[in-house]
C-alpha cells in the first residue's frame, strides 16, 4: 500500500488517436483549343524553271514580287519548326503526367 499509494493519485493516461487524412483535390482544367494554321504555298525555283515560274506566279498573284529563301535557310526553318514541335509535344506530355499524378486512384486506373 505504501509503495503503490502514489498510483492512486495518478490515473492511467488515456490515449487519444485522431486520424485525419487530407487529400488535396486539384481540378483539371480544359486544354486550349487546337491551333488552326493557314496553308503556305512553296515555290522551288532554279534556272531550269525560272521563266515558267515568273509567268505562273504573275498570273496567279498579279505581281512579281516575292519573298525568297535559300535552301539552307529553308532547312533551318524546318529544323526550327521541328524544335517547336518537340517542345509542344514534350510540354503536353508533362501536363498529362501531372494530370495523371493528381487524378484520384480509381480514375487513373481506368485510364491505364
Amino acid at each position: 500500500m505504501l509503495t503503490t499509494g502514489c498510483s492512486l493519485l495518478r490515473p492511467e493516461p488515456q490515449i487519444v488517436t485522431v486520424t485525419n487524412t487530407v487529400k488535396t483535390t486539384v481540378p483539371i482544367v480544359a486544354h486550349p483549343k487546337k491551333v488552326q494554321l493557314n496553308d503556305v504555298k512553296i515555290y522551288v525555283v532554279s534556272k531550269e524553271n525560272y521563266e515558267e515560274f515568273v509567268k505562273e506566279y504573275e498570273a496567279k498573284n498579279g505581281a512579281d514580287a516575292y519573298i525568297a529563301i535559300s535552301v539552307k535557310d529553308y532547312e533551318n526553318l524546318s529544323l526550327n519548326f521541328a524544335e517547336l514541335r518537340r517542345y509542344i509535344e514534350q510540354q503536353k506530355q508533362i501536363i498529362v503526367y501531372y494530370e495523371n499524378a493528381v487524378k484520384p486512384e480509381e480514375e487513373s486506373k481506368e485510364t491505364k
Partner: protein
Amino acid sequence: MFSSIRIALILVLLAGAGGAVLYVKKLQSDLETARANVAKMEVAVQTSENSLKLVQAETLKLAELNKNLSADLQKAEQYGDELRATLQKHNLTHLANKKPGLIEKRMQNATNKLWDDLESITDPNANNGMQSTETGTADSNSN
C-alpha cells in the same frame, strides 16, 4: 483499556480493508483503461500501416508515370532526329537545281503534313498519347 485498544485495532483493520478495496477498484479501473489504450494503439498501428501502404502505392504510381514520361519525352525527339538525318542525307540545293518541280511537290506535301501534325498534337480531343512520329519525315525532302 483493552476495549479501547480493540476498537482502535478494529478501526485500523476496517480502514485497511477499505483502502484495499479502493486500491483493487483503482487497479481494475486502470486495467480497463489500459485495455482500451491497447485497442486504440492497435487501431493506430493499423492506420499507420495503411498510410504506409498508401504512400508506397503512390510512390509506385509516380515511378510508373515518370518512366512513361521519360519514354514519351524521348519519343518527341524522334521527329527532329529524323529530319536532321534526312537533311544530312540529301543535298537539297543540288536536287532543287536539277528537279525543282519534284522538290517543290515534296516540300509542299511535307509542309502541309507538318501543319496537319501541329493541328493534331494541339487538339485537346485527341488521345493523350503522342501522335505517331513514324511518318513525320518519311518524305526525303520534308519540312
